[in-house]
């Protein structure tokens, strides 16, 4: 046991910090730090910088273009980029599909898709959830029926993040209706411009529209777009969801938002308010405990088993802590959250009534933060799964 990171690790942290400082566009940083809306171009600009440096896919093995980092390095990288105000990696190709292709894809599929993902030329949307299948994903009804060397896909996917930014979709489909729910599912790749696919935006309560619905009407998908074996899709999906959860503790993001709370308290002359001071301190301590736990898990088994109880614990605590921080930010803003306008959610926009008061975005940020306990497997489902492991194992 040792309290500090090694000098090598610290040097790496410095290197990442300096990189973010030098390379991150100041307008993009301002948007992230003030909780404003980002465009696809903002993400691509940052991802391209990461690609050029060889840092875009820390989670991929070296032979597929990963940087070959230790878990601690990956951890420090996440923390430093988020803390420095860089956009998150929202591209599902990098975090979700990439690892699946690497583990289960054919050489041809890897060659075809991985390079474009790394260069941000190709953006993938995740088509898992359906109107009737959210937490109970296995009950989904979208079907794929074999017709020669194609599948004919019919169904309806929903809550598809950033599909409007994407050109491709990875999708879970039913290929065997008679099998047990989890055994008749396959994992298919498709181009979003294939005839029969329609993407419709969903407007969210805080005014954003990151989400979409995807309607699939007799969509012809080549059989070669199947990942792995037919009816084994559930295995690949579980592998993918394990990857989705690892970064979800969001330590760097929490640290960055805590800095924002402190700054706002100071700017508003509320440093003497013991109520807010105490809340900030409490949350800061919670964050230290979470970070220590994350690092302890990392150190205990250097091959972090993402599908175990540890990942669920980090997801639950990490997301709830982030929600608490957003709630505190929202409280600190006082009456400034009463006026709201979409204009004020954009760096370039000016609402005549709100002006450049950054606090008006904090209501939307608070509302948006509720998603953290819903996506990536709801926190109720995480607790169910974990308790099963602990009590019935």
């Amino acid at each position, binding site marked *: 046991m040792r309290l500090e990171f090694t000098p090598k690790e610290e040097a790496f942290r410095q290197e990442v910090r300096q990189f973010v400082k030098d390379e991150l566009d100041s307008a993009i940083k301002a948007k992230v730090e003030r909780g404003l809306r980002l465009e696809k171009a903002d993400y691509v600009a940052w991802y391209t910088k990461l690609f050029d440096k060889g840092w875009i896919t820390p989670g991929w093995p070296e032979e597929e273009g990963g940087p070959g980092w230790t878990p601690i390095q990956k951890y420090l990288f996440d923390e430093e980029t988020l803390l420095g105000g860089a956009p998150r990696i929202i591209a599902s190709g990098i975090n979700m599909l990439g690892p699946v292709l690497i583990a289960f894809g054919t050489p041809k599929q890897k060659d075809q898709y991985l390079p474009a993902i790394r260069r941000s030329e190709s953006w993938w949307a995740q088509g898992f959830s359906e109107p009737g299948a959210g937490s109970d994903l296995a009950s989904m009804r979208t079907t794929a029926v074999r017709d020669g060397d194609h599948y004919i896909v019919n169904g309806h996917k929903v809550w598809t993040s950033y599909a409007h930014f994407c050109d491709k979709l990875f999708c879970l489909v039913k290929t065997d209706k008679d099998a047990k729910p989890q055994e008749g599912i396959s994992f298919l790749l498709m181009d979003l411009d294939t005839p029969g696919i329609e993407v419709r935006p969903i407007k969210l309560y805080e005014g954003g529209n990151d989400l979409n619905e995807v309607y699939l009407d007799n969509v012809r998908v080549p059989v070669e777009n199947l990942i792995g074996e037919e009816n084994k899709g559930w295995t690949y999906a579980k592998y993918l969801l394990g990857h989705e959860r690892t970064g979800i503790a969001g330590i760097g993001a929490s640290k960055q938002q805590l800095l924002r709370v402190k700054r706002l308290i100071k700017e508003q002359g509320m440093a003497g308010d013991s109520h807010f001071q105490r809340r900030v301190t409490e949350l800061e301590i919670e964050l230290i405990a979470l970070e220590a736990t994350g690092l302890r898990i990392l150190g205990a088994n250097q091959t972090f088993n993402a599908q175990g109880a540890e990942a669920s614990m980090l997801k639950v605590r990490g997301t709830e802590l982030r929600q608490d921080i957003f709630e505190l930010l929202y409280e600190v803003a006082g009456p400034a959250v009463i006026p709201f*306008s979409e204009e004020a959610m954009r760096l370039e926009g000016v609402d005549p009534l709100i002006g450049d008061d950054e606090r008006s975005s904090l209501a939307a940020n608070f509302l948006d933060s509720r998603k953290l306990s819903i996506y990536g497997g709801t926190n109720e489902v995480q607790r169910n799964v974990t308790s099963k492991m602990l009590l019935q194992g």
Partner: protein
Amino acid sequence: MDFSISEEQLQLRDAVKRFCDGEYPPEMRGQQVSADMRRERWGMMAELGLIGLAVSETCGGSDLGMVEQMGVLEELGRCLSPEPYLSTAVISGSLINALGTSEQQQRWLAPIAMGQLRVAFALDEPRERYAYQASLMECRLTLEGEDYRLSGEKSLVLDGADADAYVVAAQHDGALQLLVVPADAVGLTRTTGSTLDSREIATLCFADVLISSGQVLAEGERAECALQAVLDRTSAALCAESVGAMTELVEQTREFLKVRKQFGAVLGKFQVLQHRFVDMVIALEQSRSMAAVAAMAVDEADAEKSRKLVSAARVSVARAARLISKEAVQMHGAMGMTDECQVGHYVKRLMVAERLFGDISHQLQNFAKSTATAA
């Protein structure tokens, strides 16, 4: 203490409920509506006698209290009514009712009760949050012969975008003055915008606006007392409105838990959700009690006691609203975060109610102060 509701109060509630169910169909709640539609509804509310409920009979009102208004506000909250009931009927109406000369009452209060005049309340200022003491106000009056000139800025004026007039709080040599300023006064410019829950709001800028002595409702200590009283009244009203909104959120969540199926069962079968739903109901029922306490306190108690109970009610209702809002969204899953789902519109209404005229932190301070002086 007696929380029972009289036959007349019950009838009033029923009438309001029928009006609301007819005028605010669920799919329109939380959506912006045209100015014409709003004027029409306002007229209907006047005909029902709702606007003049607490106005004296000489001005065409019913001379009733906060307890009666509570029933109206609860229903309006339940239907997310965007009408300026709080600003005009509860706040401005009661200030003119309490302070106005008979001439002022005939000029402003009678048309308010008849639904012909909508008067918003301009209290907050951009620089200091919830700074409701005259000495902190930057909106100032200066004497000019028999008249005054008013200069300064007022922010967060709810329903201020198309009000016909404003009750404005300003300072004159450190003393508070409450005045009525028509919207078309020379030197008054307004910047309009939208609230988080899609209602109208404005910032008012006064540049040497001429104020005749006939526009002054009260000054000095009399104005101070009236302001404190109306803030208590407003808080009680916000509690009632919030209870209405929370009732609907709980109801919608109950319905959802009964019909939404996952893992082959309705969500209401999952014990963790059962328990948390019960916690939502407990929070709602406590809020209902506290909203009633606040209304009774405004009608009956002395200033000190009223202040204390009303701030307690605000804190307790705000905490409950936060819990209920978060749980309603969570239990609806991703659907709860969409604009299409009603849940979000209720959550946003509650968020605005929490912040108007004093947030939790402000109310905690009010409570602590009144306990200190009462002890």
